[in-house]
């Protein structure tokens, strides 16, 4: 456990030092890459709560990622065009304030996760995997064919949204915002994992019968975890949209759901920092393998396969030589 803690600190240090170096070396793109890694890590941390702690293999987290993205896209595009979102029964205006957008993204994706979770959690095992996948696809097709917000074209936001006191267009400052959010969420999720709720969630994952017979309403525990998980991934979606200043239905695609799962497995399932390490590795692979070969997905596939088959604990598991990832 101690060793894992050092590895975690090392990962965080890397995430700070690399952009800091890039800042002084004037390589802003490296900062953009680091920001991307941080945002993906955040999405992964969200999914990991459901998947790692709760054993809820959601193959449809792109739905919340996309919902967060569209929360940003819709609010900011209305602010950009000075058109209110709705006037009846009461006036709702667009906004370009990041904190407001984050709040809306969290609430909207939490609500979506509540509906999808309430339905999907009636099933379990493979059904759950496939049902969440199908719900994600449903939203994918909906956003493509829904003309109001650009359909497949998506929405371009020309200027990054505002955060009081900061220049968000400056890559290092935007990185800072994302990094602080990641830290805050990591802290929060760590507390949740260790709380009675986290114990119940993990206990129900390991032995559902036992959790039931000690009087825990497993369905409700899972639903709450699913909602928190969706909300975090939704927040990541809003940040991702702001990073690209663009949203499109691809944020809802099942490949995104798959990628978020890949971050977790690469880093180590049910480890607090698993998705962080995994997302960072993914970005590094994408960047370097992508530069080496047009067919870099073959290598990515091979690495993923190797990790799943032979290195179950992911990077962190491999480094800390501890197979199981129960955060105690």
């Amino acid at each position: 456990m101690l060793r894992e803690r050092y590895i975690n600190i090392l990962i965080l240090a890397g995430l700070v030092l690399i952009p800091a170096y890039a800042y002084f070396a004037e390589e802003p793109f490296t900062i953009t890459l680091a920001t991307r890694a941080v945002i993906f890590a955040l999405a992964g941390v969200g999914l990991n709560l459901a998947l790692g702690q709760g054993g809820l293999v959601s193959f449809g987290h792109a739905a919340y990622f996309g919902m967060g993205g569209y929360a940003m896209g819709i609010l900011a595009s209305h602010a950009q065009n000075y058109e209110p979102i709705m006037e009846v029964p009461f006036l709702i205006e667009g906004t370009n304030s990041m904190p407001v957008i984050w709040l809306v993204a969290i609430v909207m994706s939490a609500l979506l996760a509540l509906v999808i979770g309430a339905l999907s959690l009636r099933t379990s095992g493979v059904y759950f995997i496939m049902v969440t996948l199908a719900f994600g696809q449903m939203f994918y097709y909906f956003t493509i064919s829904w003309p109001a917000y650009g359909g497949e074209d998506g929405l371009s936001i020309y200027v990054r949204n505002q955060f009081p006191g900061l220049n968000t267009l400056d890559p290092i400052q935007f990185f800072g915002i994302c990094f602080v959010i990641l830290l805050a969420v990591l802290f929060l999720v760590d507390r949740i994992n260790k709380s009675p709720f986290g114990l119940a969630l993990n206990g129900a994952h390991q032995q559902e019968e036992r959790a039931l017979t000690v009087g825990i309403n497993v369905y409700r525990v899972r639903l709450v975890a699913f909602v928190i998980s969706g909300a975090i991934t939704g927040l990541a979606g809003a940040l991702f949209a702001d990073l690209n200043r663009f949203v499109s239905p691809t944020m809802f695609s099942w490949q995104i759901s798959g990628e978020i799962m890949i971050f977790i497995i690469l880093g180590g399932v049910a480890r607090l920092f698993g998705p962080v390490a995994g997302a960072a590795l993914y970005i590094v692979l994408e960047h370097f393998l992508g530069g080496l070969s047009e067919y870099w997905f073959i290598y990515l596939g091979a690495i993923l396969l190797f990790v799943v088959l032979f290195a179950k604990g992911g990077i962190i598991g491999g480094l800390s030589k501890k197979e199981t990832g129960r955060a105690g």
Partner: protein
Amino acid sequence: MPDSILKVSNIEKSFGALKASDGISLDLVPGEIHALIGPNGAGKSTLIKQIAGGLKPDAGSVQFLGHEITGMSTAQRARLGLGRTFQISALAMGFTVLENAVLGAVGQSGSVFRFFKPAMKDAALLARARSALDRVNLRDYENVVTSELSHGQRRQLEVAVALTLAPKAFLMDEPMAGMGGEGSKTLTNFLQELKHEAPILLVEHDMDAVFACADRISVLVYGKIIATGSVEEIRAHPEVRVAYLGEEDAA
């Protein structure tokens, strides 16, 4: 006879053509160990599920402490005070012994939806968990990961987790299974003590253990209770001898 804690009345449950529970009635009174025996396929596990939750009878009712619990979920029954142990240890194997016990305490305290205070630093939860571990002599093992416990120790932990609920009645499914003679004896003594706290409905295969500790015995055959009575009565009961003990002897 004192009022019964648990009362099963005329339960019926069919799976297609098979009648797994055919008008079963039985009760559990304070201070007793009531053993339920029966050959394989007699419908024991079906009956347990209908008492503990997870399976709804087609007809009949289950009452616990005067509450009608027939339609309740497993978790609701547990919160009313029905403690349960499983035939095959149902423990979170990745948890430590203490974590498993704390999980029980969390369920008991109804503090599931608390998100910030670490469970393993909560004095009330820890006290409840440790006192349960004390009672089954597992206190020294509290930091051991459950998957590393011996079989007998896991059975003890099962009981401890049930104890954290401070149950009003126990439902124990073959607690002696797979335990050596010595362990079995220790557990029997422990149950003799425990029954004064809360009566025990004991489903058990081990005949010697049943005859050694049960106050009353019910015999289930083909979904029907063919006899209920004291150890002596059951030993002497002709139908039981034919239906059950005869088979046992032959085997």
